[in-house]
């Protein structure tokens, strides 16, 4: 049988060697690595951004017209108002102001004073005490406000918006998700005992 000589072996290896395509010769194939890099970076950026943004909405309906019939108007309303001042909360009900403890109506006074130290966000307003005040109101006037979950929250002009939102939280419910707000944010199931005053209207103190 014929065998390859040394020179034939060299010739075969030389001809059969895989040619590496140089940068100048590679025009036929698209280099997708830079595109892939960009996509990876954009993808990572988007994933990192949306991971931190979980938002919700607090429904704040416009005040209803006084001549519109409603279930709450068929009975005597307590007209509960929370005034947010720089020194604390003044809670009004039934045409007067509630004294500390939120069970008796008296002369104008600070119902829930501020704490001496701020919380994690630096706010000195006592949100847990305001929630306890709202619970006391619901216990004290249980029959009068059985189906009335409306409240007016008014603030001084310079109160930070963050304090307003936390105050709305404090008057709305005693524990998270106690009020079952409907999907369209118009009403809901407020029968839970820990659901306090979820129908908030806003006002400003002059």
């Amino acid at each position, binding site marked *: 049988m014929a065998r390859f000589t040394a020179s034939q072996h060299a010739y075969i290896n030389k001809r059969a060697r895989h040619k590496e395509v140089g940068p100048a010769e590679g025009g036929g194939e698209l280099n997708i690595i830079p595109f892939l890099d960009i996509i990876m970076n954009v993808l990572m950026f988007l994933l990192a951004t949306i991971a931190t*943004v*979980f938002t919700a909405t607090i429904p704040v309906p416009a005040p209803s017209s006084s001549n519109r019939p409603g279930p709450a108007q068929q009975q005597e309303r307590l007209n509960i108002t929370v005034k947010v001042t720089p020194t604390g909360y003044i809670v009004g009900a039934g045409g007067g102001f509630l004294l500390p403890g939120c069970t008796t109506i008296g002369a104008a006074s600070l119902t829930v004073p501020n704490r001496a130290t701020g919380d994690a966000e630096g706010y000195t307003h006592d949100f847990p005490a305001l929630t306890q005040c709202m619970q006391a109101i619901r216990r004290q006037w249980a029959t009068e406000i059985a189906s009335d979950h409306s409240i007016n929250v008014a603030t001084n002009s310079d109160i930070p918006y963050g304090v307003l939102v936390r105050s709305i939280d404090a008057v709305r419910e005693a524990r998270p998700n106690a009020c079952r707000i409907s999907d369209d944010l118009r009403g809901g199931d407020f029968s839970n005992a820990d659901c306090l005053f979820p129908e908030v209207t806003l006002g400003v103190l002059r």
Partner: protein
Amino acid sequence: MSGTATAEKASLIAVRREIGRKKRRNKVEHQSEDLNVVPMMDMMTIILVFLLKSLSSSSANIPQGDDLRLPRSSIDTAPSSALQVIISRVSISVNGRFIAALQNGVVDASLKRGGGNGLLINPLADHMREQVQIARTLASRSGQEFRGEVAIIADRGLPSRTVYEVLYTCGQAGFADFRLLVLKGAR
């Protein structure tokens, strides 16, 4: 004289056949070294397009920074897809369009009807009236009820009065249902 069969030189045909065989073998080896990234690229592109599409149509697309830090709340409701009014410490914008400049979260008195004590912000009122017209037209054409929803996205350090001024102005323009956009998680 060579004499033996083993010392016989291979023919040209045998050499060419051997070259072809070796070339095929080399080609297969080189092919197996390259990672095929095309399926991965397809997948990445699909994910990217999906994320961009979902982000552009959701209200979670809020550019937070030093001038706009949302307050936190314990409420657990779905974010609203209503018209977005963004109030940062330096500006008011509606759906990304600049409306008025603020100085440390306060609206300049010259921009309000009635001056410093006024509640109606003139440039915002003009723009919101246009938006009401557009929203009413769209609602009537699609056979839906105009609900007048506005999502308020405001910095947590803003004076409350600025937020009230925006609410009042939107109310005067014809919007009546406000949603305060907050970050989930407090208490």
